[in-house]
């Protein structure tokens, strides 16, 4: 199957700071592809290169076979981009924003209304409100409507759910699932690990490097170490003590527990080690790795 987005060894640096290091990935048609990584990992830079706002220093990328540098005019027609920051006109109303973006793409709201009915519908009572005065969730719906109004084949969404409440986030991902069912390819970035599980495939990115690409399940299944959730009476020194233990691969705080990856599956020796360090009420239970654990593992791997 031909790739919807094909990124080949893209590098980009800003004033000596390398934002992307030979990033390579492939997005298949009609999938939700997630780019997961912390702030400053290079997600936005990669997206801006893909939507032809930024030129890479090296490497190349194609969208549906069109080169992002040579065929930038085509790229701008077939992609819908939603920047991380709300970038519609604050002083135009909801409906003015929508018709403006429809008209500069040479279409009309009426012609493509079917594409956005479920997203734009809830906004219609506020059609004459200025966009700057909308709530975060409504702004996000409007931005998505404006990115979809010209019927793009690819949606590029840069951290669409940052700063949006939990209910709106859930709704938003449901809307993305509908778009995928309609055949649109979606490339989405997020700093939230729990959202990674909602993607068809994810790429983990850190310091401008793509560290792993797989199905969320595949990533989780590939987690190579036995994993335990640990708690004790003294939570504060616990991670430090666990890192001193000779079988420890990694130990990270995860909610109210510490996730401990072991090089050898020997929980009894962990408990006796902790007791020797003065811990009491030790609870040690085996747990299933999540995306975040995979991410941590890849980071540890990158350091070695």
């Amino acid at each position, binding site marked *: 199957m031909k790739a919807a987005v094909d990124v080949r060894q893209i590098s980009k640096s800003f004033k000596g700071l390398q934002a992307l290091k030979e990033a390579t990935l492939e997005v298949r048609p009609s999938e939700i592809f997630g780019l997961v990584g912390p702030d400053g990992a290079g997600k936005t830079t990669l997206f801006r290169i893909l*939507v*032809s*706002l*930024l*030129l890479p220093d090296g490497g190349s990328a194609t969208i549906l076979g069109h080169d992002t540098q040579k065929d*930038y*005019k085509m790229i*701008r*027609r077939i*992609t819908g*981009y939603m*920047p991380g*920051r*709300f*970038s*519609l*006109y*604050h*002083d*135009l109303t909801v409906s*003015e924003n929508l018709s*403006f*973006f429809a*008209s*500069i*793409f*040479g279409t009309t709201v009426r012609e493509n209304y079917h594409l956005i009915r479920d997203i734009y519908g809830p906004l219609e009572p506020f059609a004459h409100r200025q966009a700057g005065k909308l709530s975060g969730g409504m702004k996000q719906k409007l931005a998505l409507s*404006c990115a979809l109004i010209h019927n793009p084949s690819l949606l590029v969404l840069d951290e669409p759910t940052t700063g949006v409440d939990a209910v709106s986030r859930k709704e938003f991902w449901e809307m993305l699932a509908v778009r995928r069912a309609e055949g649109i390819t979606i490339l989405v970035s997020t700093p939230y690990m729990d959202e990674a599980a909602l993607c068809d495939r994810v790429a983990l990115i850190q310091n401008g490097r793509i560290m792993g690409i797989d199905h969320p399940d595949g990533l989780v299944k590939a987690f190579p170490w036995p994993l335990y959730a640990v708690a004790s009476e003294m939570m504060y020194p616990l991670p430090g003590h666990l890192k001193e233990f000779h079988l420890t691969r990694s130990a990270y705080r995860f909610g109210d527990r510490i996730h401990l990856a072991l090089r050898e599956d020997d929980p009894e020796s962990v408990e006796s080690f902790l007791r020797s360090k003065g811990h009491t009420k030790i609870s040690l239970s085996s747990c299933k790795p999540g995306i975040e654990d995979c991410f941590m593992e890849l980071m540890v791997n990158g350091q070695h």
Partner: protein
Amino acid sequence: MHRILFIIQKEFIQIFRDRTMLPIIFLVPLIQMIILVYAATLEMKSIDMVIVDQDHSPLSRELRGKFEGSPFFRLRGVAESMALAERELHSDRADIILNIPADFEEAMVRNESSGVQLLISAINATAAGLTQAYSRRIIMAFIQEHMPQGSETVALPHISVESSFWYNPELDYKIYMLPGILVILVTIIGAFLTALNIVREKEKGTIEQINVTPVRKYQFITGKLVPFWIIAMLELAFGLSLGRLLFQIPVEGSLWVLFGFTAVYLLVALGIGLLISTMAGTQQQVMFIIFFFMLTFILMSGIFTPVESMPDWAHAVNIINPFAYFMRVIRMLLLKGSGFWEISKEFFSLLVYGSIMLGLAVWRYQKTT
């Protein structure tokens, strides 16, 4: 083509939705005209004067009377000594001292040479120059009157100079200033608002969203320029009507030529605004850059002081000073009634200048970085 119309429509919606916009467009010209035209006047009235009369003669009293009778002078008092009078000058209660020496009348009657002394505070050089001119005129008239009959001067051939001022017969300062103020207004609307508008799109990030659409560079820029071009033209019409109504400013030349020239002039003003906006990242930077250029260009344009009296390097700088062109042309058109041929050199210079500026701006504006 349609895309340009949609952008223009969007700009007009935004411009008129901004509540500060209408006052800027209509109140600013009104206030500036009234303030500048009345306050920036060169006519001097009520110059404070102190007289030191050491002669106490009928003749010295007559000279005093001449000054008191003049509308330009206001007699603050008669001082007994120069020291006292100088104190008045020093404490800024007086602008000028007239010192009449003790043997003034005697010398006049004997037809010997005599003199009066004028001490003028020259803190403001222009005011001092005018004060001196006014005083001299009064004193000369006084001397003429009291020239003894049959004295040598009468025998000299008498040349009387009659001068008349063309294009502004009463040397009305308002008529001189008002066209200049129109130039400033039109330029501010053109350059300032355009630059601020585009940089605001950068600051808010909305330009990103525009840059990923198929809108072409020239379409975006045309869509940005046309609204401010129209507003600036209306501003000129509005300012001109105000000037006609409030100050009876003459319109000797053709309005067609004036508006045609302004249309070309605005290409330069808008082009400069646009170019600045492609280089600046924030509205604050735009403000400072434009403020710098405006102040320099306005001072050099000849609005207050004649360009002819400026040094050669200033003439050279004025080649790139759009204000200088328009300042000269608007006065020629309004006051002198020049036709298109008299201003064609400026017209074509600005046409070239405007094309260069707009070309540079389109070239500098990058959708991709």
